[in-house]
């Protein structure tokens, strides 16, 4: 095999789960920046409606509309911001990158069960990305129906003309196909490829989170795929599945059916995104508290319970659609039930910290931030879950703030924790801790200023997705707060460049990492960098759980690799 071919195979069409994980990471970071930039433009419009976008926010992009963001562009911005952040940033980084990189290494496998399918999964995602980006260059612009793309707004007839929405639907269907391929691989890899001795309750909680996420993906992605196919046919072939009223020639279908289909997938999707973070947080808290994860089995069982409950609560997104009050109460009851397992493992996190030997390394700082933002996001979720409160709060900025606390903030900090933690294994070097600390505090403070104040705005009645809030008398007194949030968001955005710089700079100039810089027990730290394709020359035998820190039987150190018998460790 020639040198050129081997490079091609090694870096582009690689079958190695670690390289595919890195490919997903770079793709996700690109879209994170792109989606984040769009967020700043949305914030500019909300603070300074119909005023020219400044040069430092690339105002020249809007010269066709006199430098301002027009209503159509604004619709496109918030649609694509949501779509990109959820499906092209969070999903590739947490599930694509860390699912790929971490699962085989932590369970002691040599690769994914189906490496070729794994590679196809990434390239299908890449194709989906091209379709999505191509939609920006269409004459009528990209999709503008919101990230949920409810019909009839998302339909051609009586909705959004042009091909942008069609490209969106196609891109999302392709991304869903990619996710399905990955999910099947992850589920089977965990079931079939675990090293000898690696029982389910010896798996690190990070693997639990990623595995359960994949199970949800395998079940619910086909559901949204069905909805998207129907939406696509409505737009392209003139079917009327989601069209009703006078626009539907033959009586038509029902737009609400799409909402049901969307949220049957959409609510599990929330857990699809957050479960990997919960797993990573549970794992890292134990590592940096130097003690076993409190209630390890209970945490794993709680995550399983949440997976089941998440499948039957979609109706809480639809309280205001005129559903039967009895049905609304049922959904409310089921939704509030989720707070029980969530609270249990939340307290498990706190009890892991209790009397631990806390090491505030940067991954730990990000992990602690997840606890804070998830507490706020989780507690404000109770208001949205309650029918009476939700009828007032629905479609306000309160929902946006809550959603960003749970999804954006938790997942962002969880992602930063994961990158910082596994960076030495991925790139063989350490990130600069000072830059990470500066980034952490800048991000933590500004992020809370942005998202908490969004909830304040919503509580005061500020609706989401409105083009010009200053047009409404009752919002005018809140415009000062809108401006403040925008500046906080700009600060938040600016701090991300510190992390980006650190991430890139450390890859080449960071100090060489030792084999196990965090003194962790899990199997990935037993192999040297660079980890070869195949990971382990010898498949390890697993003896211990992942969190045997400060075990009194182990003398001389407070950790013991999972592949070392505790009796022999001392």
């Amino acid at each position: 095999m020639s040198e050129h071919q081997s490079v091609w195979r090694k870096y582009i069409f690689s079958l190695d789960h670690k390289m595919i994980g890195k490919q997903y990471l770079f793709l996700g970071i690109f879209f994170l920046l792109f989606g984040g930039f769009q967020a700043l433009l949305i914030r500019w419009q909300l603070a300074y409606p119909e005023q020219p976008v400044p040069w430092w926010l690339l105002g020249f992009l809007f010269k066709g509309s006199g430098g301002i963001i027009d209503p159509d562009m604004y619709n496109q911005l918030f649609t694509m911001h949501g779509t990109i952040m959820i499906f092209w940033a969070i999903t590739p980084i947490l599930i694509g990158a860390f699912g790929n990189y971490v699962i085989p290494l932590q369970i002691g496998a040599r690769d994914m069960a189906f490496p070729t399918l794994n590679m196809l999964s990434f390239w299908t995602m890449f194709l989906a990305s091209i379709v999505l980006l191509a939609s920006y260059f269409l004459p009528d612009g990209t999709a503008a129906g919101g990230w949920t793309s409810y019909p009839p707004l998302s339909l051609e007839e009586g909705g959004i003309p042009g091909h942008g929405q069609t490209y969106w639907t196609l891109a999302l269907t392709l991304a869903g196909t990619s996710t399905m391929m990955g999910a099947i691989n992850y589920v089977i890899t965990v079931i079939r490829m675990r090293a000898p001795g690696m029982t389910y309750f010896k798996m690190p909680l990070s693997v639990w989170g990623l595995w359960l996420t994949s199970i949800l993906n395998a079940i619910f992605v086909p559901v949204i795929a069905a909805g998207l196919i129907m939406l696509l046919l409505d737009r392209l072939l003139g079917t009327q599945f989601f069209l009703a009223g006078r626009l539907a020639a033959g009586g038509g279908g029902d737009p609400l059916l799409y909402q049901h289909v969307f949220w049957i997938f959409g609510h599990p999707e929330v857990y699809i995104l957050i479960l990997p973070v919960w797993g990573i947080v549970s794992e890292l808290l134990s590592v940096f508290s130097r003690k076993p994860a409190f209630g390890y089995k209970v945490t794993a069982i709680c995550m399983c319970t949440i997976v089941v409950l998440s499948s039957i609560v979609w109706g809480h997104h639809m309280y205001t659609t005129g559903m039967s009050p009895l049905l609304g109460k049922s959904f409310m009851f089921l939704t509030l039930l989720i707070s029980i397992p969530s609270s249990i493992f939340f307290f498990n996190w706190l009890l892991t910290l209790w009397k631990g030997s806390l090491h505030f390394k940067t991954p730990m700082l990000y992990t602690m931030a997840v606890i804070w933002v998830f507490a706020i996001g989780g507690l404000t979720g109770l208001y949205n879950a309650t029918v009476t409160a939700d009828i007032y709060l629905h479609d306000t900025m309160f929902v946006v703030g809550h959603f960003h606390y749970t999804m954006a903030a938790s997942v962002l900090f969880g992602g930063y924790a994961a990158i910082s933690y596994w960076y030495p294994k991925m790139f063989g070097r350490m990130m600069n801790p000072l830059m990470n600390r500066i980034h952490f505090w800048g991000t933590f403070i500004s992020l809370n200023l942005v998202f908490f104040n969004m909830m304040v705005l919503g509580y005061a009645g500020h609706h989401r997705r409105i083009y010009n809030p200053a047009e409404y008398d009752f919002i005018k007194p809140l415009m000062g707060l809108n401006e403040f949030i925008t500046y906080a968001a700009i600060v938040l955005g600016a701090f991300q460049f510190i992390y980006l710089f650190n991430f890139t700079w450390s890859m080449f100039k960071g100090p060489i990492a030792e084999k196990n810089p965090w003194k962790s027990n899990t199997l990935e730290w037993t192999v040297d960098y660079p980890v070869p394709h195949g990971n382990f020359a010898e498949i390890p035998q697993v003896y211990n759980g992942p969190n045997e820190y400060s075990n009194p039987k182990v003398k001389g150190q407070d950790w013991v690799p999972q592949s070392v018998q505790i009796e022999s460790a001392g």
Partner: protein
Amino acid sequence: MKTMDSTVPIQCDENTSKLGIIILLGSITMLFITFLSTFGAMVAKELSYIKLSGTHQAIVVGNACLMIVSSLLFDSGFRQWQGTKSTRSHRFILSSHILGLVFLFGQITIWQILVSDGLQSGTNVLAGMTYLMAGAHGVHLLTGLVFVAWVWVQLYRGIPIKPLRFRLIGWYWHFLTGLWIILLSAILILIQI
């Protein structure tokens, strides 16, 4: 300790492949459950009306029987090949493939008859759903036909074939038969309500 050479290509075992196909089929099932649930919801809300004449129903059921026979022939071919490793079983597989093709063309023909009788996908939402389910099943069937054709070519040319591949392609083929029977039964029952 289990030892492995890291230069050995990574291959998954038989049970892993079987589990893979089971999860894949489960996911495909979820796709069709969503279609069928949507169809049921539309019927329950009386969003539109669809009536198939006795002749139409007979053609549709007859066509489904072809798929059942195709599945049985594939199974017979597999069993004969498994027992004797005889390449003569290629005749069963070819027959199975041909019946699959006939079924597919039958579906298209029935579709055209229904459209010409006024059941347009654009104006009748239940007809649209039926066409969508038949179409989605047809796309999966096309993939299946490619696999079955591949098995036939291997047997016909006497090229050794891995039993697991043969078996898993069979699973997929039988799944498509079962799926269509369930979809068709559900559609015929729901439109009678």
